[in-house]
């Protein structure tokens, strides 16, 4: 398929040795810029960063081509380097693993990453410390690559926290404004709350499966090493797992053993079978070294694990209740918003769920929860997005909302569609952010849409590309966004048809309403920004100009992808049958439907509905804002709902009042009450007691010789009297 992009694909062995370059290029770029960047000229620093990203992209592309187009590559490219952490409960090494799933992500990360590096060269050209910016960006790429390519969940966690760090650094890039630093800190802390869930998930995984590796270690073979697969022996019908199985090996083995039809369930611990292995260890069983207090039902434990991991995902992917950091994260430079807070980092939650999708597939409860949280987030964020005035805030809430859609997809069991929406969303949302950046750049850093307007003539390229992006975001049929979103909603409806669980219907309706809102606020943005009169000050007006080519080129490329992405890649992700068979191109197995026709029956009504709401939303936006002059002013509005939406439904304030404020007060109280008064009071009180007691005793020391003589005398007398009584 991709021969035309990369004419010559190196051999598997060569690729294995080159794979390390994917993370290494950005890392070296980070080191160069970080250590010596201070002495570089601004363009050169940008050049170093961009070249690092591009080189990484090229190597990644070669690997991906290999994985997709060759027979050997189907099992993925897997290289294990040095041991990292070896304990008695688990062990893991530094390993990179490209399979079909991660290949999608790695291309998004490095590809869009490269484009945004290029864009940043223009956008950040006048900044004081360009080198620092590019160092951070490269570090981010490095961490993101680790997250995506790590061959064990701990490596994923490394990347996970690493991108959180970069996000922190980049949000607070202009640290001289305290607000930005605060936003960065908020992002980090909220992410950490999610990470706590992730950590707990990892702990349970270790307790249940005794491993953190996704797959077993590669084995050297002809023409390169191969990762052994879990298979069903055709003759004996026995499940054969590789030695030292990874998580995915275990889940596959469990699926092959127990999930024979759609009514099967996982067994209790007592019935756990032993799986045959190919090597000298004949059988292997899931260790289940479960600590007391977690129960010992495998299904229950897996649900618990999934929920913990999903809590991690809500942090990073900005879902209810942890989405509050993402809008604030817009304090960072716009390319950062595009790369980290739209295209890549925030989707890592979805990636993580997909990575372990075979585990999540076992737990209906967890999937339902994911679906529900996704739907709620999609709707909630869309409602907030309706009234925002800051161009980046609108996009930020739309990102939260779109991430919600992805989780709806995952929760509906359509993992492939979740990833598909990640891909298309990366195209159009990066495009929109970069376009917004271009607008902001042109407007001398003005972000308030009330002061924009009428820019379509002055910024033709920006306008055209952003329009395409908006169409995709609004889900106009034919655009990439439509392909993914429509299919996700169809799956939810299909799920309802299949299970007759009313919750799915509720989620579906929420999704449709959110889709309507999305279309409305997207075009509200377009109309307010590009149509009507220009409402900026004269000085700003004077400076308005189209951006340089470094900024326009990425816009054009992304616009093309946003428009045509659905046609180009849709086949890889969209499910034709309802059987949940593994996608050849993605190595993902969606949760199968009970009834073959459930999904089919959902497609047509859903297609009509989504098309209608998208057009309705755009139409309403046109009627309200399309003619210009109708400038929103929330301060003057008396509509309570409108006000609540503009103020983000006071979520931040509620969190402040419920969590932050009590935490501060309790800490302060404990500091004074417990530490200083109680504990130190006791300690110092004891000391005081001794001191006061001895100052009483001190009186005895008169310094008068006679007193001492008297003491001796009375002592003697007492002793004698004692003797007198004692010795009869």
């Amino acid at each position: 398929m991709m021969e035309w992009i990369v004419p010559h694909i190196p051999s598997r062995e060569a690729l294995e040795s080159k794979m390390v370059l994917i993370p290494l290029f950005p890392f070296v770029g980070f080191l160069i810029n970080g250590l010596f960047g201070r002495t570089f000229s601004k363009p050169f620093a940008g050049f170093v960063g961009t070249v690092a990203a591009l080189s990484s992209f090229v190597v990644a592309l070669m690997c991906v081509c290999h994985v997709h187009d060759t027979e050997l590559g189907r099992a993925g490219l897997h290289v294990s380097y040095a041991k990292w952490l070896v304990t008695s409960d688990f062990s893991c090494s530094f390993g990179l693993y490209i399979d079909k799933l991660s290949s999608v992500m790695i291309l998004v990360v490095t590809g869009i990453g490269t484009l945004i590096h290029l864009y940043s060269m223009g956008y950040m050209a006048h900044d004081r410390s360009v080198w620092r910016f590019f160092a951070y960006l490269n570090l981010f790429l490095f961490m993101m690559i680790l997250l995506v390519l790590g061959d064990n969940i701990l490596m994923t966690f490394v990347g996970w926290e690493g991108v959180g760090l970069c996000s922190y650094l980049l949000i607070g890039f202009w640290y001289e404004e305290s607000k930005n630093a605060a936003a960065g800190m908020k992002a980090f802390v909220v992410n950490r709350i999610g990470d706590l869930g992730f950590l707990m998930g990892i702990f349970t995984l270790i307790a249940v499966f005794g491993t953190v590796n996704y797959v077993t270690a590669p084995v050297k073979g002809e023409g390169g090493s191969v990762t052994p697969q879990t298979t069903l022996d055709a003759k004996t019908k026995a499940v054969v797992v590789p030695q030292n199985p990874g998580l995915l090996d275990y889940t596959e083995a469990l699926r092959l053993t127990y999930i024979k039809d759609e009514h099967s369930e996982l067994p209790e611990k007592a019935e756990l079978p032993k799986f045959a292995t190919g090597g000298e260890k004949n059988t292997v069983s899931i260790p289940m070294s479960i600590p007391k207090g977690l129960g010992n039902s495998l299904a229950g434990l897996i649900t618990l694990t999934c929920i913990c991991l999903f809590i991690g995902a809500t942090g990073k992917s900005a879902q209810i209740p942890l989405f509050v950091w993402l809008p604030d994260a817009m304090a960072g430079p716009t390319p950062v918003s595009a790369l980290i807070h739209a295209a890549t980092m925030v989707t890592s939650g979805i990636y993580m769920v997909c990575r372990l999708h075979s585990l999540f597939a076992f737990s209906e409860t967890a999937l339902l929860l994911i679906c529900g949280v996704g739907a709620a987030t999609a709707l909630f964020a869309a409602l907030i997005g309706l009234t925002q005035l800051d161009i980046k805030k609108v996009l930020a809430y739309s990102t939260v909302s779109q991430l919600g859609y992805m989780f709806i997809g995952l929760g509906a069991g359509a993992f492939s569609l979740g990833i598909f929406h990640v891909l298309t969303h990366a195209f159009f949302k990066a495009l929109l952010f970069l376009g917004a950046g271009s607008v902001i750049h042109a407007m001398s850093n003005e972000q308030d849409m009330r002061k924009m307007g009428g820019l379509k003539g002055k910024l033709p390229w920006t306008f055209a590309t952003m329009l395409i992006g908006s169409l995709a975001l609004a889900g106009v049929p034919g655009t990439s966004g439509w392909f993914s979103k429509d299919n996700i909603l169809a799956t939810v409806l299909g799920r309802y048809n299949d299970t007759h669980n009313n919750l799915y219907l509720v989620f579906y309706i929420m999704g449709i309403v959110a889709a309507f809102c999305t279309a409305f606020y997207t075009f509200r943005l377009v109309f307010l920004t590009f149509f009507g009169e220009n409402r900026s000050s004269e000085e700003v007006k004077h400076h308005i100009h189209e951006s340089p080519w470094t900024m326009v080129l990425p816009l054009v490329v992304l616009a093309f992808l946003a428009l045509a992405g659905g046609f180009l890649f849709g086949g890889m992700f969209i499910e034709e049958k309802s059987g949940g068979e593994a996608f050849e191109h993605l190595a993902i197995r969606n949760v199968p439907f009970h009834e073959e026709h459930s999904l089919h029956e959902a497609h047509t009504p859903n297609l009509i509905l989504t098309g209608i709401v998208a057009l309705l939303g755009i139409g309403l936006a046109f009627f309200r804002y399309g003619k210009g002059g109708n400038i929103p002013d929330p301060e003057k509005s008396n509509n309570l709902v409108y006000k609540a939406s503009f103020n983000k439904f006071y979520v931040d304030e509620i969190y402040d009042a419920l969590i932050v404020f009590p935490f501060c007060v309790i800490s302060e109280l404990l500091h004074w009450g417990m530490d200083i008064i109680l504990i130190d009071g006791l300690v110092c009180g004891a000391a005081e007691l001794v001191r006061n007691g001895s100052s009483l005793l001190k009186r005895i020391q008169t310094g008068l010789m006679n007193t001492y003589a008297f003491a001796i005398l009375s002592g003697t007398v007492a002793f004698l009297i004692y003797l007198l009584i004692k010795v009869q």
Partner: protein
Amino acid sequence: MGFDLPFNVIADGGGLMNLKGCLILAGVIFSIGAWGVVARRNVLTVLISLELMLNAVNLVFASFARMHANMTQSANNATAGENGQIFALFIIAVAAAEAAVGLAILITYFRNKETVDTRDMKELKQ
């Protein structure tokens, strides 16, 4: 020096002049001396009281020496009955030394502080 009594003083008597009497007398004198040490604030008097106490002890030694008077130093008995008296002699020697040194300290102290009252001797307390 000294003169030797050619007769046994006690043997003919009995009555009050016995060991118990001597010991009680010694106790009373010792107590009076101790009283002086404790109650008096004048260092001179205190030193004199000390001499009283030492004398009381001497009396005890002499009494017991009298009790052991029949003990003779010989080849199979190394201890002599006079040992009590000898010890009393040593005590007298020590008392003399003590009085000398004590009084010398007193003089030095008086020269520096113009007082011999124990109520003024509180340097160590500060």
